[in-house]
């Protein structure tokens, strides 16, 4: 999932300052899972901003609405019925959601309320960790399901570096050494021989070297 965190409230207040009628738009997918932009967080932010406006003596209207997915046009299309009521949309979607709404409604100013962070996993309640950089050439088979590009502090494809202590990274002793984990897992599956390969540097043209990426699946199209 895509993780995000709410921007500082002062930054949001500054961005919404020119507008009087605002739609706070949440997203019920990834950012709901990471407790940044779901229905609850959208209501909290809207409530906070309304209170801040009252303290400042400003007369503004902030309504809140949450769609299932801001990054899918079919889900944001119904906003067409209400969008004209607002001067601006304060989006609690990830960067993809914000841009999908902006493209769908070109006349409405879109304000991002979140900072999009990383592709990650919910490790525990209230704890999210980055575990994928979206390199476009997944090597998790080779590394036993643990991505050294993301989880090794030095991003080594040919590790370990030799600096770990007690299974922890020398860069940050709080972080498990990804290479220790890789070796443990590959040993468990009797597959350590995969590490006899010398892995070449990543071909980053698969990521952003050729500009924004897209995926086209004709079987999924209309």
């Amino acid at each position: 999932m895509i993780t995000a965190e709410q921007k500082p409230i002062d930054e949001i207040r500054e961005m919404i300052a020119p507008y009087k009628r605002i739609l706070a738009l949440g997203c019920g997918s990834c950012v709901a899972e990471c407790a940044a932009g779901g229905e609850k967080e959208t209501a909290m932010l809207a409530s906070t901003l309304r209170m801040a406006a009252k303290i400042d003596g400003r007369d503004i209207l902030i309504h809140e609405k949450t769609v299932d997915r801001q990054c899918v046009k079919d889900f944001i299309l119904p906003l067409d019925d209400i969008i004209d009521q607002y001067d601006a949309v304060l989006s609690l979607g990830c960067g993809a959601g914000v841009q999908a709404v902006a493209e769908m409604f070109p006349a409405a100013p879109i304000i991002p309320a979140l900072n999009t962070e990383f592709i990650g996993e919910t490790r525990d309640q209230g704890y999210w960790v980055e575990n994928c950089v979206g390199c476009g050439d997944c090597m998790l088979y080779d590394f036993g399901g643990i991505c050294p590009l993301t989880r090794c502090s030095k991003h080594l494809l040919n590790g370990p570096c030799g600096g770990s202590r007690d299974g922890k990274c020398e860069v940050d002793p709080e972080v498990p050494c990804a290479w220790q984990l890789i070796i443990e897992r590959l040993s468990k599956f009797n597959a350590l021989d995969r590490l006899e390969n010398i892995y070449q540097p990543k071909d980053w043209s698969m990521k952003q070297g050729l500009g924004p990426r897209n995926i086209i699946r004709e079987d999924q199209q209309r």
Partner: protein
Amino acid sequence: MNEKHKQKLALFYCERTPKSSEQDKQSLEQKYGKSIRLFPIPCGGRIEPLQILRALEEFADAAYIIACPKGKCRYFEGNLRAKKRVQRAQEIIKSIGLEGERLGIVMNEHAKSLARQAEEIMRSISHLCPSPVLSPHR
């Protein structure tokens, strides 16, 4: 501070708070009138920052939660969760310039009655100015 101002308190309380039956609730409401709004909840852990913020936004000068003492929650950690959520809500209101003490949680260590707790909380917030969030013409 305006001496005539009567604080309005939103009080959320765990239903296991001693002497918090419907009858006790009603007699408290009679005593304090519009100055108090009582919200029984099945466990302190049921409280969400949103409910606290909404109370402050819509009618309350202060919002407090009465939860069970440490180690005494029927659901093991509802009281601890409530504490964290109140802290979160406090951070939010402080970020917009409201005093953190408009929110609070009481871990009912000495098993005091709802009425006693309400009285103590009312006393502890009596020095607060009227909330700038609420219209002066309430």
